[in-house]
Structures are given as structure tokens and as C-alpha cells.
């Protein structure tokens, strides 16, 4: 048994490519668990970061610094009454959150956490991700329809019109990034996610810096389109219509609503993974080319452990700052235990055997976490777009920019091939 595990740990293929069902299932379970934890962390982080941006504290009561708030939220949502509107189409009402969750989670089959750390590596990886994430639009339209009231219907149609229009801009930005993978000896690019990161590794620079400023503009187009695609601020007219009129998930309560919520955060993580893979070098550590060599590799390999030790140090510092009152004793002990746990994880990450395997996953997750912070930052900073301004920006600004970037990238790539490799 141990030899089986060990023999797998040094394989050079993803489990899907190796046809190994057991490890595929293990990876699926790991990714699903990781996503669930990430989503719960995101709900807590969003409330805390928004609160700190608005000069207040956020949840502080439920656990130490509100750390148990996501658990309280999910318990509340599970225990709420499950209402179905009387005249609603019950089959569609039931299946709509199912489709949205399915579309959001199936995308993670091809997300590359490392050169062998993906469930599988399709040779149409990026196409699969774009396609399956566009299936969630159908779930939203069905949710609006099945609620059998005009406010959710119009909210759903608006939201899906927004998502469809920004998918075009996303697609153009993705195409211009995939174009950059073909600048190798054979002149053949690849659509596979792992292949795109390996192309960045071979060309020695992240695609965001390639053909400056074309890579940056393509990244900018994708960054804006991905925020609009996931219905997040400042493009959240469908979601905040819950405060103005009503959104597509008005009639959903309890667990069904939490499925929509879960799939929204998962879709955010999914499109951030696309952005990280295509432009920010996936699992590559920062400065793969400028600071190369064994010493810099070793120095950067200490960073995962240092990051977790830093988090543990913050936990301990806040433990010391907790109010010294007998009612706070449990929270203080809880925070200290959490700090010890994080410190242990950090120490384990210093062991070279673990560090080599886990490093790729850490860098990928750190970059996606940066994007999540940007999402929350946008929500706290920007006012909401009106719907006609939103559609105008999608079609009249981002689409021509995307086409221009594509044409310019293709021309510069052709020039480079002709001049430097005649």
C-alpha cells in the first residue's frame, strides 16, 4: 500500500492522462474539499475585508474574530424553510441550482495546480473551461423563469444577457493569450491548460509581460470581463437588484439559495484560475527567468512555510490582544489552537520532500487568493454600473479592444518569428 502511494507520488502525468481511476477519485475529493473550504473562507474574508475598508470591524462575535461565522451561516441556511412558489414550474425550479452548481464545479477537472496536479489534462482544456462555465447562464435563466414572477424573470434575463456579452470579450482575450503559446520552435500552440503554463515556462516570461503592453491589455480585458461574467461588483446589477427590485434568486430560500451562493464563489475561483493560468504563469514561482538558478529556487521554496508561519504569528498576536475576561476564555484558547495548527502546517512545509510536491499548488493558490482579494476590493470601491452602461461597455469598449489586441498580438508574433527565426 505504501509503495503504491509512493510510486504514484513520483509520476510524471496527471491521473486522468495515466488512466488511474483511484487517484482521479482522490484528486476529485481533494479539490472538492479544498473548494468548499475556500468558499467558506471567502465568505468570512469578504465580510471582514469589506468591513475594514468601511472602517468597521465585521463579524467579531461568533468565533475569535468571526472565524466561525461561515459555519453559523451555513447552519442557518440549512435550517431555513424550503419554499417553492405555488405556480412555479417545479421541475425547472428544482433543477436550476443543480445546473449552476454543476457548471461551476465541473470546470475544476482541468484546472492545473501543478504540472501533474490536475485531475486530467484535456488537449482542449481552455475551451472546455469556457464552455462549461457558459452553461451556468442556462441555470440562471431557468431560475428566473421557474420563479413565476416578473421581477426574477427580468433580473435573470438581464443577468444572462450580461454574461453572454462578456463571454465574447473573454473569448477574444483568451485567444490572444493562446496565440502567444505558439511562439516556439515548431510554431504550434496548445489549448491545454498545463501546456499553456509550460509554454510560459519555456518562453521564460509570464504572458502578462509578453509583447508589452499587449499581454497587459489582454489581461486587463479578461480581468474586467471575468468580474462581469460572475455577476460581481461593479457589474452586480442582477445580484444587488435584490436590494433594488429582485434578482433571479428571490424565490429561493435556504439550501437552494446557498447553492447559488456557493456556485457564485466557485465560479469566481474558476475564472481566476483561468486568468492565473493564462497570464500569470500558473504554478510558476515569481521571476522564473530573471532570478533563476538553484539558490533562488531554494530561497523561493521557503516562502510557503514562511507564509503559514506569518499567519500563525498573526493568530498569536491577536490571541495576546484578546480581552482578558472570563467570557472570552474559550475564544482565546480557540484562536491559540488555530495559530498552533497554522504554525504546524508552516513547519511541515519546510520539509524538502513535502515542499517540492506542494510548492506548485501553493503558488497557484496564492495567485488565485490575490485575485479573490481584488474581487473584494472592487466590491468595496466601485459604484455599480447601470445596465445600459454595462452592455455598452461590453460591446462597444471591450470587444473592439479585444479585437485590436488580437490583431496586434498576431502581427507582433509574426514579426518576431520572421525577424528572429527566419
Amino acid at each position: 500500500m505504501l509503495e503504491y502511494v509512493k510510486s504514484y507520488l513520483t509520476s510524471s502525468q496527471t491521473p486522468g492522462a495515466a488512466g488511474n481511476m483511484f487517484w482521479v477519485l482522490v484528486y476529485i475529493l481533494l479539490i472538492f474539499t479544498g473548494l468548499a473550504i475556500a468558499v467558506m473562507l471567502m465568505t468570512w474574508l469578504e465580510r471582514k475585508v469589506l468591513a475594514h475598508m468601511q472602517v468597521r470591524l465585521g463579524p467579531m462575535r461568533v468565533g475569535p474574530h468571526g472565524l466561525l461565522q461561515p459555519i453559523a451561516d451555513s447552519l442557518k441556511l440549512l435550517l431555513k424553510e424550503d419554499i417553492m412558489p405555488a405556480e412555479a414550474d417545479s421541475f425547472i425550479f428544482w433543477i436550476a441550482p443543480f445546473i449552476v452548481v454543476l457548471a461551476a464545479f465541473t470546470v475544476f477537472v482541468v484546472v492545473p495546480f501543478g504540472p501533474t496536479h490536475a485531475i486530467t489534462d484535456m488537449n482542449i482544456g481552455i475551451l472546455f473551461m469556457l464552455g462549461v462555465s457558459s452553461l451556468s447562464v442556462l441555470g440562471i435563466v431557468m431560475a428566473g423563469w421557474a420563479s413565476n414572477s416578473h421581477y426574477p424573470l427580468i433580473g435573470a434575463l438581464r443577468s444572462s444577457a450580461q454574461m453572454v456579452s462578456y463571454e465574447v470579450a473573454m473569448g477574444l482575450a483568451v485567444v490572444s493569450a493562446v496565440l502567444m503559446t505558439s511562439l516556439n520552435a515548431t510554431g504550434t500552440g496548445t489549448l491545454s491548460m498545463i501546456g499553456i503554463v509550460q509554454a510560459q515556462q519555456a518562453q521564460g516570461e509570464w504572458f502578462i509581460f509578453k509583447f508589452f503592453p499587449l499581454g497587459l491589455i489582454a489581461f486587463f480585458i479578461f480581468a474586467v470581463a471575468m468580474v462581469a461574467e460572475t455577476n460581481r461588483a461593479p457589474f452586480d446589477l442582477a445580484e444587488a437588484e435584490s436590494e433594488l427590485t429582485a434578482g433571479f434568486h428571490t424565490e429561493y430560500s435556504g439550501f437552494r439559495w446557498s447553492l447559488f451562493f456557493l456556485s457564485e464563489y466557485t465560479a469566481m475561483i474558476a475564472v481566476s484560475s483561468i486568468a492565473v493560468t493564462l497570464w500569470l504563469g500558473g504554478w510558476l514561482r515569481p521571476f522564473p527567468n530573471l532570478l533563476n538558478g538553484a539558490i533562488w529556487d531554494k530561497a523561493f521554496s521557503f516562502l510557503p512555510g514562511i507564509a503559514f508561519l506569518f499567519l500563525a504569528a498573526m493568530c498569536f498576536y491577536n490571541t495576546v490582544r484578546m480581552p482578558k475576561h472570563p467570557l472570552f476564555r474559550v475564544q482565546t484558547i480557540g484562536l491559540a489552537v488555530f495559530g498552533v495548527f497554522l504554525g504546524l502546517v508552516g513547519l511541515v512545509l519546510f520539509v524538502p520532500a513535502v515542499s517540492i510536491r506542494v510548492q506548485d499548488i501553493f503558488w497557484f493558490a496564492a495567485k488565485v487568493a490575490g485575485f479573490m482579494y481584488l474581487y473584494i476590493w472592487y466590491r468595496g470601491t466601485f459604484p455599480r454600473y447601470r445596465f445600459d452602461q454595462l452592455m455598452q461597455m461590453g460591446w462597444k469598449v471591450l470587444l473592439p479592444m479585444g479585437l485590436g489586441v488580437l490583431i496586434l498580438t498576431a502581427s507582433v508574433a509574426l514579426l518576431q518569428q520572421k525577424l528572429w527565426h527566419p
Partner: protein
Amino acid sequence: MLIGGILVITRKNPVHSALALIVTLLAQASIYLMLYAPFVAGVQIILYAGGIMVLFLFVIMLVSIDRVQKERQFNSQWVVGIIAATALGGLFMAVYTKGKDIFPEHALPMVENDNTQRIATMLYGQYMFAFEIASLLLLVAIIGAVVMAKKKI
């Protein structure tokens, strides 16, 4: 795919029919996968299931519901329908029995790794004219839609 197709034509509610059509199109994508064409399967999901069907659903949902439910469903052309289906079935059987040599004996060993590259080479090389004509057709459709929807030209 067959179940999806049958559900499309037998459902009273047009939204249910549209959903069955989505299931049919996804099954079509998996048939493309089985034919070693992963690029076509991916594009089918993006464009058909994720784009065209959304717009279908827009139109279905914005058309008034009462009128649809009030229309009496009829099938008074069942004689012609059975004749046409029998003719088509006979045609299929004739092709299958008489033209056995056009079907290959075993599954062809097709390569799927470079499906995207080969489609690109053929589409932009050999079939460039058809590509440009198709895009011209789409341009005509867009202009027609704008002309029909504008209040004043």
C-alpha cells in the same frame, strides 16, 4: 440523445422543450468526442448550448405565456407524418443493406491530439473561401437584425 430529441417534440411547455434541446445538443457534443473531434465538441458546447440556446430561451420566455397555453395542440397530419417517416426509414435501410462498402470494417485509428491544429490548417488554408462566405452571411444576418429592430434608419 434520442430521449432528448423525443422530449423536444412531445413536451407541451416550450421551456421544457428548450431544455430537452439543450440535453440533445450536449449529447451531440459527446458524439463528436467519440468521433475523435474534441475541438468541435468544445465549440459545440460553447456556442450551441451556451450561446444559441440562451437566446432561444430569451425569446421563448419573453413571448406571452397565456397565448401559448391557450393554443390547442393538434396533430391532424398524422397520415402524412407516418408516410414521410416510413419513406425515410426505408431510405436508411436501403443505404445500410445495399451500400455496405461505404462503412469501414473497424473503427478508424484517428488521431485526436492535433484535431485543433488540423482544423485550423484546413479552415484557413483549403477552405478559406467558405470561411469568408460564412462570415459574410453572418454579417448580412446582423445587419438585417439591426434594420428590423431600429425605429428609424
